[in-house]
C-alpha cells in the first residue's frame, strides 16, 4: 500500500516538474521577442547597446578572474555568476561602461579630451600645493581608467568601498557554497587561501586611491563654483563627479541621468545643483546635441531656483 502511495506521488512529481519546465519555457519564449526587438533597434548610444554589453561582460570577467586567482583560478565561473547577481555591482559596471561611451562620444564631437580637460589643466597649474597634488593624482588615475576601459577591464581596487566589501563576501562564500560541497573536486585548503586572499585585499585596498575618490577630493578642494558643472570645462568624468557632489546623489545615478531618455531628469538635477538656465542649456546640449531643448526651460529653472529650500543636501549649504 505504501509502495503504491509513493509511486503515484512520484508520478505526480514528474508531471508537476514537466509542467513547471514547460511554463518556464513559455515565459522565456515570450520574453525573447521584446528583448530581441529592443536590442536590434538599439542605437550605439542605447543603455543596452552591443558596446555596453560587451564592456560590462568584460569587466565582470576581469573582476572574477582577479578574485579567483588567489583561490586556484578554477572558481572564476562561479564567482562571475555571483557577481552578476549583485545588483549594486552590476549597476556600477553599467554606469562605468556608459560613462566611457559618453567620454568617447564627446571626444569625437566636441574634442573634449578624456583626461586633460581645461579644469584639470588649471588645477595642475594651481599655486596651491594640495590642489596641484590632488590634480596630478587624479590625472594619473583617469589615464589608468581610460586604458582599462579600452581593454574592457576593471580592477577590484578601483571599486567603491561598499562594492569591494560585497565582492570579498562573494569570494569568501564561493569555496564554502553548497554547490561546492557537492562537487567532489573541491580541494582542501582552499578556504584558508580564500581567507588569506581576503585579508591581503582588505589590507591593500585604499579607497582614497580610487579614481572616483580622487575626483571627489579634487573637486572638494577646489571649492564650490559652477565652473566644474560645465562639461566642456571639466571633461565628462569630473563633470559627473561634480554634479553628484553638488546634488548629493550617487554618482552612478547621475551617470544614468545622462542617457538620452533622461533629459528631463538631467535638467532637474542641473537646476537643483544651482546652475542658471544658460548653464543648464549648455550642459544639456553638449550631452544631447540631437535633441533640442524643451520649451519653457527658463521658467522651470527659474521656478526651481526660486523655491525656498534647494533640492538635495547641498541645497542649504552651497
Amino acid at each position, binding site marked *: 500500500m505504501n509502495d503504491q502511495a509513493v509511486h503515484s506521488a512520484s508520478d505526480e512529481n514528474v508531471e508537476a516538474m514537466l509542467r513547471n519546465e514547460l511554463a518556464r519555457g513559455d515565459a522565456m519564449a515570450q520574453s525573447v521577442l521584446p528583448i530581441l526587438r529592443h536590442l536590434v533597434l538599439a542605437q550605439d548610444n542605447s543603455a543596452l547597446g552591443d558596446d555596453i554589453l560587451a564592456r560590462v561582460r568584460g569587466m565582470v570577467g576581469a573582476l572574477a578572474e582577479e578574485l579567483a586567482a588567489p583561490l586556484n583560478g578554477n572558481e572564476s565561473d562561479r564567482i562571475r555568476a555571483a557577481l552578476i547577481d549583485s545588483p549594486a555591482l552590476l549597476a556600477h559596471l553599467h554606469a562605468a561602461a556608459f560613462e566611457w561611451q559618453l567620454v568617447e562620444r564627446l571626444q569625437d564631437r566636441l574634442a573634449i579630451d578624456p583626461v586633460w580637460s581645461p579644469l584639470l589643466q588649471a588645477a595642475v597649474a594651481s599655486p596651491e*600645493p594640495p590642489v596641484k597634488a590632488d590634480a596630478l593624482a587624479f590625472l594619473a588615475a583617469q589615464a589608468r581608467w581610460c586604458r582599462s576601459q579600452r581593454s574592457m577591464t576593471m580592477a577590484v581596487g578601483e571599486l567603491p568601498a561598499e562594492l569591494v566589501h560585497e565582492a570579498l563576501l562573494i569570494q569568501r562564500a564561493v569555496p564554502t557554497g553548497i554547490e561546492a560541497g557537492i562537487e567532489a573536486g573541491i580541494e582542501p585548503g582552499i578556504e584558508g587561501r580564500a581567507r588569506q586572499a581576503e585579508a591581503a585585499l582588505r589590507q591593500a585596498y585604499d579607497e*582614497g586611491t580610487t579614481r572616483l575618490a580622487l575626483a571627489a*577630493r579634487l573637486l*572638494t578642494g577646489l571649492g564650490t563654483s559652477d565652473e566644474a558643472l560645465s562639461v566642456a570645462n571639466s571633461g565628462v568624468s569630473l563633470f559627473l563627479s561634480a554634479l553628484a557632489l553638488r546634488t548629493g546623489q550617487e554618482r552612478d545615478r547621475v551617470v544614468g541621468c545622462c542617457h538620452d531618455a533622461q533629459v528631463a531628469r538631467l535638467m532637474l538635477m542641473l537646476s537643483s545643483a544651482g546652475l542658471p538656465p544658460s548653464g543648464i542649456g549648455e550642459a544639456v546640449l553638449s550631452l544631447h546635441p540631437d535633441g533640442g531643448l524643451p520649451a519653457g526651460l527658463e521658467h522651470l529653472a527659474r521656478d526651481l531656483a526660486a523655491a525656498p529650500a534647494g533640492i538635495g543636501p547641498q541645497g*542649504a549649504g552651497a
Partner: protein
Amino acid sequence: MTAEQGAILAHGRSDGEDRLVSADEPLAGLHLRCGGEPSGTIAIPELLELVRKARCYKFRLSRPVHAQDGVHAVTAWVEVEPEAGEGGCAIRVRSWQSEVIPVDESAAVESRRVVTDRQLAELSARLDADQRLLAVVADAPDLADLAAAMANGLGQPWTDFLPIENGNRQQPLHWRLLDGSRVRVENSLRDWRVVLVPQMQPGSDPAGFELLLVSDEPAPPAEPEAAMGRRRSLVGEDLAPVLRQPIARIIANAETIRTRLAGPLPDAYSEYAGEIASAGRLLLDLLDDMTDLEVVESAGFGTAPDRIDLSEVSRQAAGILGVRAREKGIVLEPPQSSERLPAIAEFRRVLQVLLNLIGNAIRYSPENSRIWIRLENAGDRARVIVADQGAGIAEDQQARVFEKFERLGRSGDGGTGLGLYISRRLARAMGGDLTVESAPGQGARFILEVPADGAEG
C-alpha cells in the same frame, strides 16, 4: 583652507564603539558643536557612518564629509583607516572648507517656526477674533486639569485661564504682544510659552487664532501603573482564536475522508485520514491546555467559589465521558444519585478537573476494566476519588506527574502533559489540593480535595 602638500589638517582617533577618543581642531570643535561630548560617540553623522563602514569593511575609506553646526556648512575630506587590534579607527582630515549658511528669508523662517510649534504643542485651542475660547484639545497629563477648565469656560478670554507672567492684565492686548509670552499652568512644573497663530487674509484683521501651548521641557514620565498595564496573553487572546477554526476544518475534512462520505476509498487512506483527524484533535487539546495554562499561571488568577454538590458534578463528568469509556469497554461507576456531598468550589473548575482525571483513567486503563468515582466526607474537607485498574504509578514518579509537560516517557497517546499540572493549580486555587495514591500494578487513585460546605454538611 590651504595647507602644505600632503599635510594633514587634523588627526583623530575613534575606539571600537565609535567614540571620538582624541581629535585636533577643527574636528574636535565641530564634534562638540554637533552635540557631541568629549570622548563621546562621534556626533557628526556622515563621519560616524564613515567610521562604522571602515570598521565593518576593515579597509581604508576616503570620502567627503558634510556637516552643519548651525552657523557654518562644513565640507571636509576625511580618510579613515581601521587600526588592527582594538577595533578603533584613525581619522585624518585632509581638507576643510566652511561657509556661512545663508540666512533664509524671514517668511520661510516664520512658516517653519509655526510648523514646528504645531508639532510640539501639547495643548492647542481655537480662538475667535476677540481671543475668546472656541475649542480646546490637550494630551499632556499635567495639562488635563487646565484643558478641562478651559472646556468648561468656552467663550471666555483665554487669558482667564493662562495668567501671563510679569505682564499687565489689561485686556484686550494686541495679539502680537501676547504671542510668545510665558504663562503659568497650575499643576504643572514646567515653563510654558504661548504661541498665537492668526488666521487672516492678507491686509485684513484676523478672523480667529490658533493658540498653542509649548514647553521646552519634555512631559514628565507617565505614571508607572499605566506603564505596567495588563500583559496581553499570547496563546489565549492572540493565537487560540485564529488557530481554532483552521484546525477544526482540518479535523472535519479528515473525518469526512475517514468515514468515506465522499465516496469509496482504500482502507489505508481511511486510516491515514483518521490519524490526521486525531492529530488535529490533539492540537486543539493542546491549544485549550495552553490557554488554561496561561490563565492559571497569571498573577491575578482566582476562582469564583460557589455552593456545589460534588456528587452532581461527578455524575455529569461521568456522563460526558461515558461514550469514550464504552468504546474501550470500560465501565464508569459514578456516585449514586441519592448521594450528596456539599462543598465550596467553582462548579466549572471542578468539572474540568474531574474530566481530566477520568479522561486520563480511560486513556491509561486496560480494556474491559472499571473506573470508580467515589465521594468522601472528611470533616471540613470534601473529596472526590477517581480510581482505576491501570498499570499504576511508581512512588518516585508520583510527584512528577503533576509537573508541567511531564509525560512519564509516554507519547502518541493524545496527551499534552499539561492536564494534571493545570488540574492541581485549579484545585489549589480553590483552597483544596490534588494528590495521587498508587503502586505499580495496583491502579491509581487520584484524590481531589476541596473545602466542605459546613452549613449543609
